[in-house]
């Protein structure tokens, strides 16, 4: 999978309330509607700044706080192609994989707001075209690759009717 777009950069500890506020998420299952409010408490006009395919770029501990799956879904439905962060909170990370939002752990200090990026997940590298640097991507844990390869957890369950995962030592969450 290869994605191309521009970086929208935020800081450390971006919690799921910031990604999608509680005051919206309880009201609807229409994720396109929720997507309009993505990151609103940090940048009220954020949704209008997105060009489809852009990246959400952050520092440490992205997605901390609540377990709301509306967070990765709102990011996905805002047509952001992936989240790049130095580290992720664990529930958000699982939710992102389960719902098919690519989450990429990498050194985001090498990305500035507006940088043009090509994210090559298969090769495990991000090309920052603006700065002409290649940024290494931390590989996905194998158990999560299995879920992704099945097309997400719902598809995995349609296929097997249960969790059918290789149980071994891993670097998963």
């Amino acid at each position, binding site marked *: 999978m290869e994605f191309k777009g521009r970086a929208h950069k935020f800081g450390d500890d971006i919690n799921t309330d910031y990604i999608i506020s509680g*005051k919206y998420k309880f*009201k609807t299952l229409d994720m396109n509607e929720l997507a309009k409010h993505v990151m609103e*408490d940090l940048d009220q006009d954020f949704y209008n700044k997105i060009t489809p395919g852009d990246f959400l770029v952050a520092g440490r501990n992205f997605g901390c706080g*609540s377990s709301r799956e509306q967070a990765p879904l709102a990011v996905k439905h805002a047509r952001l192609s992936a989240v790049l962060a130095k*580290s992720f909170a664990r529930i958000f990370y699982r939710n992102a994989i389960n719902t098919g939002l690519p989450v990429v752990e990498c050194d985001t200090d090498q990305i500035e707001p507006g940088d043009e990026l090509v994210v090559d997940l298969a090769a495990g590298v991000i090309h920052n075209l603006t700065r002409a640097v290649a940024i290494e991507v931390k590989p996905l844990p194998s158990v999560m690759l299995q879920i992704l390869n099945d097309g997400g*957890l719902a598809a995995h369950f349609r296929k097997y009717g*249960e969790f059918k995962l290789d149980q*071994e030592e891993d670097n998963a969450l």
Partner: protein
Amino acid sequence: MGQTIIEKILSNKSRKNVGAGDIVVASVDYVMGQDGTSPLAINAYRAMEGKKLFDPARVALVIDHSSPSPLEAVSNLHTLMRSFARETGCKLYDVGEGVCHQLMLETGRIGPGSLVVGADSHTCTYGALNAFSTGVGSTDLAGALISGKMWFKVPETIKFACNGKLPPGVYSKDLILFLIGQVTADGATYLSAEYTGEAIREMSIEARFTVANMAIEMGAKAGLMEADEKTFDWVKRFGGSGFEAVAADADAVYAKILEYDVSALEPQLAKPHQVDNVAPLSELAGTPIQQAVIGTCTNGRMEDLRIAAGILKGRKVSPEVRFIIAPASRDIYVQAMREGLLETLVLAGGAVVTPGCGPCVGTHNGVPSDGETVLSTANRNFKGRMGNRNAEIYLGSPATVAASAIKGKITDPREFV
């Protein structure tokens, strides 16, 4: 090699001997969803072509986050949950019954050694009962509803040794805020926390719930404590039996052991807009507040209401302050009525709202206005958390909230206790 509490529970539940780093598919004892997460879980259940629950007697859906419903759209999602509960035979806790975590603690079905997943990040609360309980998203929850299982990476453990007794006027909330300030919001990410030491042993079980509840605010997957008489007394009170304590081995391996002497700890507060932005109350005393909130899954229990009523008895809250009280469950509501605590709190100027989460999550029951400052016993103070990004939220103990409500500004509760 010795095992930590979580290594033992996950070994029991996956029927093999596992250690940190292993991937397991483990059996779960109880599965819970609330009204912010269950509708998506029901969608995911359909997408997975789920036909029935693994065991309807071990599944509960709770309507607590927007309860009673403030909007027609929310009402429709509540009805979706009610229909699903009727269809599958699981337990539904409806409007007024309370906050999901308090209700789970009151089932008698969760105790030492249990494994619980809940589609709410504060599911870690039951760690105070020596259970491994953790928050998951809606799709993971649907997987558990169907299979009665969940996959986990067995985490390493960070141990907090809290030595010494907490001084008078300083509570478990002050302790957990202090610890979060020490390790920060991702200081325990991917780790299981074990809270030990004299200060934890001395605490009531309700006070321990407050500590375990906030393990997620340091990023932890679980916030575990050892079981003792207080643990078993609590479980027995709700008809639970057959649980066996799970203790860490003396030679268990920890990622980190942090030791603190808490005998001189001051009341602590989390400042806007992060839970790990912690300061001793003395640095913030005098900050004016316009709203005070006592309740939530962190601090809406009997002990909390008793402490608050003890401070407010015969006193009035400042005319500058709106004072909101949300008992954590119907049982607590009734007990607080019987003890006269609600009378005390209401006569002091308080407004009691339906047991539930509303004021904490910004759905209703106390959204602050622009520029206002709120002091709450909740567990999160993110910008916009209570429904207004232009308000500021401080977090503290019920005693601190009660004392500050009287003075209309952040006040050390030790002036009153």
